[in-house]
């Protein structure tokens, strides 16, 4: 009946969730598109699980509305929502075999037995677990349990799949394999994935779009590249990847560019987030976009404090004259000449790399 465009899978409007007096979600508005791999990213305790549980129907939100393809979900219990969840600790039914776990949702939907079993075969193939179909969950490794949980949630063909930090219990190598598989499965099935993580690298490498959340408030929504290259505030810049924050005085703001002066008086033109104003501000510059130059040239100058070898590149910590420390990264190639500890060096900010942020 609704006139809302149906390419919005989940529409979160002004959602607030309070526990007593503390707000786990504060007036959050988000739109998750159909077919997308959407990630909720934020530090532990920021409200990611709460939002996921609200979408699944396990929490009653205090204010706001959540709609699925234009239809409000208000008042619908979890079992009436065509949404499935991969729980953080999987919550596989310990008394049922892998097959019975995956069958569970299909049988509750009254899918005829033969069709249901065919579908179980399909999804177990998809997660490469057909060989273990008769095992009990306690006989599976952590990675295998994770796949069963995924298969169980995919089997009833939900319109939206929720994944609450599904990779956090796996070791690093497995995690990287599963990332690629998850992305592939999302692409092949076309199901909207809402993926929760506190790991920014995971979010950046897997997602179509990311929502960064802090203390129940939405900080920024965008493609990984937007978030990384154009963080909208200081929290996002700090949380995603590594960044240098340099105090500046903003002289003028003109649309999305601004003119600032650094502490030593050097004038610099930079891109700015929408709400920048003149006065004190911060410049965010990614370490890989700072270049070392000879002392007395470049935008900034300081002393090399530390060199850290990272394999593919080198991290150099520099203390500016006013005491601020910055990091720069240099590729390890044969013809780079590395400075020594204690050397005076200049720092050049790559044109267009500095971004003016508000707190």
């Amino acid at each position, binding site marked *: 009946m609704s006139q809302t465009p149906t390419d919005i899978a989940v529409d979160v409007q002004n959602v607030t969730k309070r526990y007593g007096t503390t707000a786990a979600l504060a007036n959050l508005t988000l739109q998750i598109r159909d077919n997308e791999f959407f990630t909720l990213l934020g530090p532990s305790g920021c409200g990611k699980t709460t939002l996921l549980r609200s979408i*699944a129907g*396990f929490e009653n939100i205090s204010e706001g509305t959540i709609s699925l393809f234009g239809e409000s979900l208000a008042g619908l*219990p*979890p*079992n009436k929502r065509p*949404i*499935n*969840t991969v*729980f953080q*600790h999987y*919550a*596989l*039914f*310990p*008394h049922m075999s892998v097959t019975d776990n995956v069958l*569970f*949702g299909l049988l*509750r*939907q009254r899918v005829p037995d033969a069709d249901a079993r065919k579908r179980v075969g399909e999804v177990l193939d998809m997660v490469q677990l057909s060989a273990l179909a008769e095992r*009990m969950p*306690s006989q599976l490794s952590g990675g295998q349990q994770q796949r069963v949980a995924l298969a*169980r*949630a995919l089997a*009833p063909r939900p319109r939206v799949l929720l994944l609450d930090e599904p990779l956090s219990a796996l070791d690093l190598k497995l995690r990287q394999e599963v990332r690629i598989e998850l992305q592939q499965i999302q692409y092949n099935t076309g199901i909207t994935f809402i993926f929760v993580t506190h790991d920014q690298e995971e979010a950046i490498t897997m997602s179509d779009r990311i929502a960064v959340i802090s203390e129940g408030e939405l900080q920024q929504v965008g493609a990984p590249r937007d978030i990384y290259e154009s963080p909208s505030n200081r929290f996002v810049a700090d949380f995603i990847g590594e960044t240098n924050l340099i105090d500046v005085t903003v002289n003028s703001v003109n649309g999305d560019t601004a003119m600032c002066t650094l502490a030593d008086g050097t004038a610099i033109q930079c891109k700015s987030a929408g709400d920048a104003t003149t006065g004190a501000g911060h410049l965010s510059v990614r370490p890989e976009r700072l270049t070392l130059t000879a002392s007395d040239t470049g935008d900034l100058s300081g002393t090399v404090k530390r060199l850290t070898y990272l394999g593919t590149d080198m991290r150099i910590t520099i203390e500016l004259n006013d005491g601020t420390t910055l990091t720069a990264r240099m590729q390890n190639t044969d013809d780079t000449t590395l400075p020594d500890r204690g050397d005076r060096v200049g720092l050049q900010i790559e044109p267009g790399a500095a971004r003016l942020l508000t707190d």
Partner: protein
Amino acid sequence: MAKKFDIKRFPGFLAITCLCLFLLYTPLLVVMVYSFNDSNSITNWGGLSLRWYEEVFFGVEAPKFKKAAFNSLTIALCAATTATTIALCAAVAILRAGRFRGQGLSFGLINLPLMVPEIVTAVATLIFFSAIGFKAGYATILIAHIVFCIPFAYLPIAARMQGIEGSYEQAAQDLYATRWEAFRLVLLPLMMPGIISGFLLAFIISLDDFIITNFVKGAGIETLPTAIFGSVKQGIKPNIMAISTLLLLVSASFVTLSWFINRKGGENSS
């Protein structure tokens, strides 16, 4: 570092352990051994025989004991079943319905009877039945047994339920199960070891009860413990030892069964 504190190395540890085991089990052993005694005396050994078992099943007192055993078993079965059902409902309500006011109080109230001296409960139950004019007999015994069995059934059930995370039922509901289906298909099977333990414990407690039964039973009806007591008042005969040994066997097999079921349940949910 101080030497590791190890109670096993205390002087006299072995001696005390042996003494305790001796005091606990010798009387039982004596009863069991003497139930096979081919003599009228309860203290002199007169050779091995099954005559006292024969006496129990076919002797002059056999009809009395058979009737009493039948009462005991049917009462234990009904009381344990009912008490387990009530305890399960209570556990679901207290542990699964979310937080509510008086949650701790409910828990306390259910378990309080364990702390009340049985004689007090017995007197109170008797007074209650006479106050409402309920005729003493099979029904009064059954009702009293149901009531005092509830906390015994509740403890293992609640312990098991506390060990089952709510996420299983949530996963079931997420997979389109109604609340009832989530209970029946997920929570109940996971609860089974606790339910069976609770049932067996309640059954044994009911089978074994003397004090309350003796107060509320009225004339003309006996359970096995009251029948044994009645018989012993006229002097201990070896057939009592045979009955006691049989009762011990029933108890021991129930406890063993309960242990195996719990162990199996533990394996499944780990």
